[in-house]
């Protein structure tokens, strides 16, 4: 198959031939990591029941970088919480195929939408928190935490408290804290949303680098189509509430990705248009 594929049964996207041929082919031999089968989630609130997710089906391969985009309130965070087992689905199941890895301390870790670092701990202690919970010895966990702080280039700030950091630095610490646990699946919930464009681009470049070094399976939620296309092997577009998988795009652009790459721009336009159409539809629904 060619690089750009619409995997779901939604409308066929007419792409120019040159765009089609310039994508690479998908390696089909990688292992299955995560299976989300027919998952639904409803919340009971004072204003009645809110269906956040409706029959989500997704399969994610090992080492794959999956981006999820969709309108606000469509259940993206909810999906990550379900995958992280912080909440249970009403229907369906989520299966994680874990590997035997001695260095792994947890299966699934979230980098939350808002900074969830602990203000009572220093940067270093935050990164070492999970290691300490898992019973790792002081020496070892400090060493490991420092390694990951180096990775996100914050080792100089190891002994600062969280309020002394900028927004971008906080998100990098959160990333280091998650990576230090060596999770099988890293879930990132709009980690760079609150940042300015420059910081955002720097961080996503760093993330791409880290990902290619560590080969983690990453699910990355974002509002920003450009970010999704720059980072992801796949982009999954969610519809408005209740969230369903609307479309799936596969991107086999070479890495590191150049923002100036015309294919990338083309892809951004394509997905943005779909996204807008979807947003328009959900607005019409709301008003009509």
């Amino acid at each position: 198959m060619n690089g750009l594929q619409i995997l779901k049964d939604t409308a066929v996207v007419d792409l120019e031939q040159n765009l089609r041929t310039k994508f690479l082919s998908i390696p089909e031999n990688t292992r299955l990591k995560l299976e989300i089968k027919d998952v639904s989630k409803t919340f009971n609130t004072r204003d009645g029941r809110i269906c956040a997710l409706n029959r989500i089906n997704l399969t994610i391969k090992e080492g794959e970088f999956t981006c999820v985009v969709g309108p606000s309130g469509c259940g993206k965070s909810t999906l990550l919480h379900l995958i992280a087992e912080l909440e249970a689905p009403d229907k369906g199941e989520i299966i994680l195929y874990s590997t035997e890895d001695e260095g792994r301390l947890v299966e699934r870790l979230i980098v939350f939408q808002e900074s969830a670092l602990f203000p009572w701990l220093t940067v270093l202690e935050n990164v070492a928190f999970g290691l300490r919970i898992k019973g790792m010895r002081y020496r070892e966990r400090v060493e490991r935490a420092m390694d990951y702080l180096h990775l996100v280039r914050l080792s100089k700030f190891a002994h600062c408290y969280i309020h002394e950091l900028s927004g971008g630095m906080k998100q990098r610490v959160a990333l280091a804290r998650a990576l230090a646990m060596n999770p099988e699946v890293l879930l990132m919930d709009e980690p760079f949303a609150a940042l300015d464009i420059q910081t955002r681009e720097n961080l996503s470049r760093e993330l791409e680098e880290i990902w290619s070094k560590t080969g983690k399976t990453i699910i990355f939620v974002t509002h920003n189509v450009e970010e999704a296309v720059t980072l992801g092997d796949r982009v999954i577009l969610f519809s408005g509430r209740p969230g369903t998988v609307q479309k799936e795009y596969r991107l086999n652009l070479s890495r590191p990705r150049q923002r100036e790459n015309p294919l990338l721009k083309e892809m951004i336009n394509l997905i943005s248009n779909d996204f807008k159409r979807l947003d328009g539809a959900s607005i019409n629904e709301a008003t009509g």
Partner: protein
Amino acid sequence: MGSTAKKGGFFLLLILTWYALAHSGWWPEYMLPAPEAVCRNLVNGIGSGRYLMAIAVSIRRILLGYLISLGVGIPLGMLTGRLKWLDETVGSLLLGFQALPSIAWLPLSLLWFGLSEKAILFVVIMGALLSITLATNSGVKNVPPLYIRAGKNLGAKGKTLFTQVILPAAFPSIVIGMKQGWSFAWRSLMAGELLFINLGLGHLLMIGRELNDMAQVIAVMFILIVIGLLFDRLLFSRLEAVVRRRWGFDQV
């Protein structure tokens, strides 16, 4: 430097005014003693050991009462903060008691324990315990759910989650409760000593009044201020500094 100079100048001026007024002869000495009379009284009282004894007795009472309040109040606040049924029963009872000024417990306490150390201890505890418990309770209840989720996600659960996430997150609120509890305990102690209980600084104040010895009254008031400031500096300022250092400057 400037601020210390301003402060020093202000207090110097205050003492000079006091000196001038006391020596003007407008008021009798039992209404306004001269600063040097108060000083002399303070030196004599401390030299003879009389004041030191009272200080020791009062501090022993408050420390004992306060430590008991901490020992009971913090665990009780944690429990009511975590267990809904306990909060709805015991928690609401405590909330009701908080409306009661702690010195109102004195008559009851005297009937139960007689004119004894136990009676004053009880009043001190009733002063401190409630604010400590309630502050701990609200601190534990108001831990941002995000911290709890993050803690769980990193592998903490049950007791570990409580001691490593919930408790530290509630720390600023607990410090506020401890400070408030201290000042309530201090007030209840003074009120109790003034009204009934022998020995202690409150009692000295009362003796001063009975003897028309205004110098003694003012001297003891000085001692009370110094003790209050001392505890604030030694304990609470430090705790608050910890909170400020870690959480940033917007808390406490």
